[in-house]
């Protein structure tokens, strides 16, 4: 889920910059996907003295991260940030730690992924003697990961298709009042929560999820729901007029609205996900990586990322620096959090694999 969002955010930026051609990093990403990255690149991104190597999801996110986090870090410490866009999937991190040839110091992954990696012994604990916990909101400073940005899944819709605007999860599943096909995500995080909210469960009582109840709520509507896999696909379903309403990432909802104001979204009942900085076990730069992480939690850099890619800040101080336009696209800004569900890290760290398979099995006709 996180992996897909981060890649998608990079895709969006790439579209903006019109620089979507395959480059060296794209090639490395492909190698990484084949599991060959570690074998074929000894020393390619090896940390030199005074360097921290960050791995993210490549493409345009490499330049965006360099601008948001690399430049301030170098200005503060004199150290260089090297960004490898190979894609730190949990599989790739595991393979790297197993082989004893760790070349990344810090990775951009889901907070939940960080927790599962840490539990399996593939991540270093975050050193909170160096990293200032108070820079992020409560609950985002975890043992094996510290929140670096947020994103939300929101109810987006085509306004002209309905006499009144849909306002909540209940309306999402009200096919009489709001006729037309829907799209939901085939990655499970947040999807069952939406069904449960529509079925009358309070936000505070969602976890642990009542999976059977959620499936029962969803079942009658399955034939009218198309499941999207990546952000670009979800946007296309709206453009094609294939769906009237959908549960999609806020970054894609914003692109739709920029393109055509008939598309819009409600922040009510959005699902908030958090991404995190994690450190692979045995990282080359050792403790120095925590200086980088601490620097990258500064509000200014996070705001740069919000403006470039739409990813929301985790540092509460960023709010004071925001313009109204910034606030309108930040999932945690005041006014955007009505009925918001914070995706439970503990619940998914323990249950995601099993739940994802159950969900795929359920939606398969």
């Amino acid at each position, binding site marked *: 889920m996180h992996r897909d969002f981060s890649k998608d955010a990079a895709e969006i930026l790439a579209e903006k910059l019109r620089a979507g051609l395959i480059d060296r990093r794209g090639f490395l990403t492909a190698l990484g996907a084949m599991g060959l990255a570690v074998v074929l690149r000894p020393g390619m991104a090896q940390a030199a003295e005074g360097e921290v190597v960050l791995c993210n999801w490549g493409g345009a996110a490499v330049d965006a991260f360099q601008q948001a986090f690399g430049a301030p870090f170098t200005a503060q410490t004199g150290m260089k940030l090297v960004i490898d866009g190979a894609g730190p999937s949990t599989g790739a991190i595991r393979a790297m730690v197993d082989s004893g040839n760790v070349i990344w110091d810090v990775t951009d992954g889901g907070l939940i992924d960080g927790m599962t990696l840490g539990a399996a012994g593939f991540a270093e604990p975050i050193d909170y003697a160096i990293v200032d916990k108070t820079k992020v909101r409560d609950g985002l400073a975890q043992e094996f990961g510290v929140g670096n940005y947020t994103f939300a899944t929101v109810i987006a819709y085509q306004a002209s298709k309905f006499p009144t605007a849909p306002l909540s999860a209940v309306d999402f599943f009200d096919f009489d009042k709001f006729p037309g096909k829907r799209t939901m995500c085939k990655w499970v995080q947040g999807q069952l929560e939406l069904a449960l909210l529509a079925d009358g469960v309070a936000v505070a009582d969602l976890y642990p999820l009542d999976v059977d109840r959620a499936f029962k709520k969803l079942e009658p509507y399955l034939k009218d729901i*198309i499941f999207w896999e990546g952000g670009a696909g979800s946007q296309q379903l709206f453009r*094609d007029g294939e769906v009237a309403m959908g549960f999609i990432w806020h970054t894609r909802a914003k692109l739709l609205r920029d393109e055509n104001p008939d598309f819009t979204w409600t922040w009510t009942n959005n699902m908030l996900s958090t991404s995190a900085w994690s450190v692979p076990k045995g990282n080359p730069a050792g403790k120095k990586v925590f200086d980088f992480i601490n620097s990258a939690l500064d509000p200014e850099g996070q705001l740069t990322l919000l403006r470039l890619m739409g990813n929301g800040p985790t540092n509460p101080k960023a709010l004071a620096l925001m313009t109204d336009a910034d606030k309108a696209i930040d999932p945690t800004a005041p006014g955007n959090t009505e009925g918001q569900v914070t995706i439970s890290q503990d619940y998914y760290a323990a249950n995601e694999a099993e739940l994802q*398979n159950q969900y795929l099995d359920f939606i398969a006709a």
Partner: protein
Amino acid sequence: MSSRFERYALLLTLPAGIMVLALYALPILQVLSLSLTEGKGAWANYSQLFTSRAVAKVVGTTLNVSLLTTAITLVVAYVIAFGMIHMTARSRRIALLMVSIPFWISVLVRAFAWITILRSQGVLNGALMGLGVISQPLELVYNRLGVTIGMVHYMVPFAVLLLYANLTDIDRRIVQAARSLGARPLTVFLKVWLPLSAPGLGVAALFVLVFSLGFLVTPALLGGGKTLMIAEYISVQISTTRRWDLATALSTALLIVVGLLIALALRSPTMRAAFGGGRR
């Protein structure tokens, strides 16, 4: 002179051979070994393939879609190939070109093209509604029908070429003999053409079926998330749910099934003849 060259001829294939070993054989062996060591061990990994209801469903869907694709593809391709061998040489060249054009287009582009054609406000539904044939758009894509259409389209050119080669090899004198003995056209087709093209049909069916079992992009894009086939299921288990035990066991099982299918088919003399081309 030739013997000296023949001694070194092997060298010409060496780079390709090394590539195959490094990029196919080694990773496959790695998958195989992971399927034995990952998780709770070999027994648990493989036994879950038979006990998991979800795996049974995915396998069922895959077989269902693949067999349907194979059947439709063979009928369509046979009609085309049969037409081609009876054409003038000039028309045949054009037909061959038309058959090979889809090979130039990537599977991804084709899937998106089909979405454009089949979606509810797409080319086909638009035309049918414009003509007043239907009043509500037909649901042609984001379901199993869309997946099957996309897969048949992908497989037809392969099957046409295989069948065309087979049909060309059939001795026309047998057809003439049947006619001269008073057989009607339908009888000639059923008693001469069809039996003699059985090996070709067998090879094409096997090829299309084996290929269909591994489809990834087409079902993912045209199925709307609701047609889950083996390849996509394996990919989800590797990258999203980190169930490498299940993924590697399922991959290995698929490989074995496909291998057995081909081995079994090769035991039949007609199939051997078709692969060897030795019946002429």
